[in-house]
């Protein structure tokens, strides 16, 4: 069975251009008055955090669409977004640690937002593990859709954790009711980086959904070659003596 759809190249080009644009903008913007050059970590840390949120919100949306439409393409989109989201959540944790060491003096602290983000990472690893517990595409899609809808409840808790509990992580600077307390050049560069990382996420989604479709095709092809299993493989004995 040869896959009918050809692979697409444009997502790789989008990723390369968006990655390069972010790098150039982040390295040329003037440094922050307080954190100086360390503030440049902001332009990868915040976009990665935004995409951790956005990816899991899309997983919830696609999961709900699957339960409504029962179309496996929504299940593949939900899974692709969850996997890319896990990658971005791992990245935001790593970047947070790299930023924490020179500013807080420690690699890790049990701050509410940091700890809840680590829990989010492991919960979505659990989502990906759950998908490996069955070979039935429909059972897998239904189980993971329910998981994908309920797991997203963590995101508002993580976002508001810096307001609800006192910790080392700073309160929101951009996404808050009052106007941002940031210099215009820094805000614009940050928004530019967020837009570029969102383009990287969308491009990665296209490739990951393509892979998921191929994996499903392969699974169905392998299952069609299998012989009958268990009771289906045993014929009833002929007790008529051949007459």
């Amino acid at each position: 069975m040869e896959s009918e759809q050809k692979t697409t190249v444009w997502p790789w080009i989008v990723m390369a251009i968006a990655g390069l644009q972010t790098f150039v903008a982040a390295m040329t913007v003037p440094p922050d008055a307080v954190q100086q050059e360390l503030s440049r970590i902001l332009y990868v840390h915040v976009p990665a955090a935004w995409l951790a949120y956005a990816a899991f919100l899309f997983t919830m949306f696609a999961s709900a669409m699957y339960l409504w439409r029962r179309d496996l393409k929504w299940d593949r989109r939900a899974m692709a977004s969850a996997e890319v989201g896990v990658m971005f959540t791992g990245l935001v944790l790593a970047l947070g640690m790299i930023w924490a060491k020179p500013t807080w003096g420690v690699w890790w602290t049990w701050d509410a937002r940091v700890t809840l983000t680590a829990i989010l990472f492991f919960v979505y690893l659990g989502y990906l593990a759950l998908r490996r517990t069955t070979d039935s595409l429909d059972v897998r899609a239904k189980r993971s859709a329910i998981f994908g809808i309920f797991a997203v409840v963590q995101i508002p808790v993580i976002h508001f954790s810096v307001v609800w509990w006192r910790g080392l992580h700073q309160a929101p600077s951009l996404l808050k009711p009052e106007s941002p307390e940031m210099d215009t050049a820094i805000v614009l560069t940050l928004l530019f980086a967020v837009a570029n990382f969102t383009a990287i996420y969308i491009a990665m989604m296209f490739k990951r959904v393509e892979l998921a479709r191929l994996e499903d095709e392969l699974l169905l092809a392998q299952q069609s070659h299998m012989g009958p299993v268990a009771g289906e493989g045993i014929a009833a004995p002929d007790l008529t003596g051949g007459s």
Partner: protein
Amino acid sequence: MPIAEQWNWVIFAYGVTYFTLVVYGASVAMRITRVRKKLDSES
């Protein structure tokens, strides 16, 4: 903290970011190639 040391942390952070993105992208590309080959052999 001296400016040169601050740049070391910045380079470290960007190195980790782009390394992660490239490795993940490469893993997806390799898995696509492998699954396509398996699908061809199934035909």
